[in-house]
């Protein structure tokens, strides 16, 4: 274990207390009970690895390859798929720019995603997709260079805030000669992301308003907010989606119809707003009274106090919690499969039930579980790092 074979006058520690052996002894076999645990654990791992090996060697990934487009974009019009690709490219560019501007955690995410693109490019079967993936890696680099030249974080923040709206318009179309792709055609990972991002973006202002409402000194507004938040938090998300899907149309004026995806988005927004409100309330409570009193003393009015003093600090404190909320929303988007939408989970369900893919459910489920896992794991990791950096809980 060591290269120190030279003669020294000190007695070396016994071989059993240092190095690999010492580590094993200390961490795995320190007592008879510990040894027993180790043996049981090894047996579990052995069984798991054997099972996994059996699965990996016999898996037939054809089902994923054949349906890859379905998994990614659903039934999005084939000729228009370039719009999805452009959207991804925009995000790649912004990611590269943010990598240069902020570094830290975004640098790590940037590296991971670039690496992911490279691996996918190596795995890809068609030259066109290889070129596309390589172009995305290049775009990350271009974004990096752009931020290096421009050096304006404010501009980047503005671009990030604008990006969901730009991408939404790009994907939906109807502007500047772009044909409309109805949201009912959206599916797979595209729909999953669309639901998660729209859910968090649209529910954010609503959640902030509800949080403020809950703290309001106006009893009517306060009780309305409390009632709303507590009712929504007390019922399962599926009942909200069910409501959005079948009750919402009844309340609409005659002749007005709303696409199913939009209805579900409304459900998600109404649902997430209540949870975000509680998150933001935590932030508001973390800001001392002194802040708003001082602001009042220097003559700011209520709106200025909120906008300039309280909200920026409160939201900064709860950024990790908001990321957590986004992660749980991202996982929850799978529930739209229950009300019959074809997101990633819905597509998986419909592929599994096709006769030609009989018996390939493991491959399909492992594939989509892996997609969810990678996305959630990256975000969880980012949120943990952010938490450390913002020093929440240490102030």
């Amino acid at each position, binding site marked *: 274990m060591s290269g120190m074979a030279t003669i020294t006058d000190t007695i070396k520690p016994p071989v059993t207390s240092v190095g690999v052996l010492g580590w094993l002894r200390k*961490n*795995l076999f*320190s007592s008879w009970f*510990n040894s027993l*645990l*180790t043996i049981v*654990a*090894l047996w*579990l*791992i052995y069984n798991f690895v054997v099972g996994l090996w059996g699965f990996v060697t016999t898996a037939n990934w054809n089902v994923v390859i054949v349906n890859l487009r379905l998994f990614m974009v659903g039934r999005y019009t084939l000729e228009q798929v370039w719009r999805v690709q452009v959207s991804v490219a925009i995000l790649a560019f912004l990611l590269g720019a943010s990598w240069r501007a902020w570094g830290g955690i975004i640098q790590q995410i940037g590296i991971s995603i670039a690496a992911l693109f490279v691996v996918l490019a190596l795995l890809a079967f068609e030259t066109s997709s290889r070129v596309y993936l390589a172009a995305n890696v290049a775009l990350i680099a271009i974004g990096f260079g752009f931020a290096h030249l421009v050096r304006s974080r404010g501009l980047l923040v503005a671009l990030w805030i604008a990006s969901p709206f730009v991408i939404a318009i790009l994907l939906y179309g109807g502007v500047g000669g772009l044909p409309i792709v109805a949201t009912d055609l959206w599916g797979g990972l595209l729909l999953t992301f669309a639901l998660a991002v729209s859910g968090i973006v649209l529910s954010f202002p609503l959640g902030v308003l509800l949080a403020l409402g809950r703290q309001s*000194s*106006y*009893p*009517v*507004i306060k009780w*309305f907010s409390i009632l709303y938040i507590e*009712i929504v*938090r*007390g*019922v*399962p*998300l*599926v*009942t909200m989606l*069910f*409501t959005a899907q*079948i*009750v919402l149309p*009844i*309340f*609409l*004026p*005659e002749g007005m119809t709303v696409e199913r995806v939009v209805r579900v988005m409304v459900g998600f927004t109404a649902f997430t707003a209540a949870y975000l409100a509680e998150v933001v309330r935590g932030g508001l409570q973390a800001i001392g009274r002194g802040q708003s009193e001082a602001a009042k003393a220097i*003559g700011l*009015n209520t709106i*200025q106090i909120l906008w300039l003093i309280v909200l920026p600090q409160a939201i900064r404190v709860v950024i990790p919690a908001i990321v957590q909320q986004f*992660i749980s929303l991202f*996982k*929850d988007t*799978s*529930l739209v*499969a*229950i009300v019959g939408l074809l997101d990633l*989970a819905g597509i*998986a*369900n419909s592929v*599994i039930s096709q006769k030609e893919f009989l018996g390939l*459910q*493991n491959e399909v*489920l492992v594939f*989509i*579980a892996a997609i*969810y*896992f990678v996305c*959630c*794991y990256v975000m*969880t990791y980012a949120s943990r790092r952010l938490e450390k950096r913002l020093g929440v809980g240490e102030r």
Partner: protein
Amino acid sequence: MTMEPTNRSSAVIPFWRDVRVLRVVAQVVFVILILLIGVTLCNNLTRGMAKFTTFSFDFLTSTASLPLAETTIPYEPHDPMYRAYIVGLLNTLRVIVLGIVLASMLGLIGGIARLSSNWLVAKIAVVYVEIFVDTPLLIQLYFWYIAGVLRLPRVRDSIALPGDIHLSNRGLTMPWYDPNANFGTWLAVIGGAVVLAIVLSIAFGKLRQRTLARDWRALWSFLGFSAMVVIGANILNPFTVTVPELKGFNFEGGITLSPEYVSILAGLVLYTGAFITEIVRAGIQAVPRGLNEAARALGLSYVQTLRLVTVPLALRVIIPPLTNQFLNLAKNSSLATAVAYPDLFFVGGGIYNMTGQTIQVVAMMMATYLLISLTISVIMNFVNARFKLVER
């Protein structure tokens, strides 16, 4: 708004700057706004509803004609709707109650494993948490149901586990205790045992007051109680044990949990257990080392330290997030519908399909789930009040 020089000498504030007036006006405006939205929606609603249905709960007494695979109370498809709804509710409660118990146990074991000095055990716990926390529950349920339980061998080739438990595509079959004629008598014996425990507790309390002996009340009450219950059970034999036996194409005897129930329960327990693992870990880590060491230095035994210092302090941190997880489990039980387990949401959807009574069905479901959530909250708040820091 900038600071305008105002005439401070005037005592009369114009009403549009009077805070008291503004407060009332703001709230009235808010109420009117909400009412306007409500009235508009209701107008649309009545216009829409007028076409096909009337608003009433009469449909609840009509024939359900809804076949349900699993029922805890006797139920036939020609029973009324409300009975079907109750069946769904009971099925949901069956999942929630057992789920909460099992998930807590798993989370406790996981949390301790996560902090184990055994490196391998700690790492297994980490991997378990990461995998189950970072994938959607629905996918896990599909996995347990479609790729797991449904793919198990037929009854004839069922997987036998120790303790006469059999896993097959018909579900999980295990020995069961059927209460027999003596069961009532045994319940009476349990009642007697409770009385005995109370008597013992009082008696030893008196003894302690006189002699200043160590406090053994809890131990003696427990011993007296369990001795009476166990001896009673041995004499009376209140249960008939039935062991599953393969007869023809199916098991006879024992109890069989359906594949659907096993999937939703396993899914919920493993998913929620992963979250509880992290909560338990955080709770135990929140107890400062120094406190444990101080307790040991004071001469408390290891068990006493655990019972009097570590656990109460850890519980104080654990209970609030644990309550949240219990609520999540209760709400997530509605995903049972994804594995075709006839829970509340499943039956509610069925009733909606049969009757088309949208608003009523949705309102009933939401109210029921709210009631369940509220019950859990109340119970957990009561538990929390017992453990929380007593402040002056």
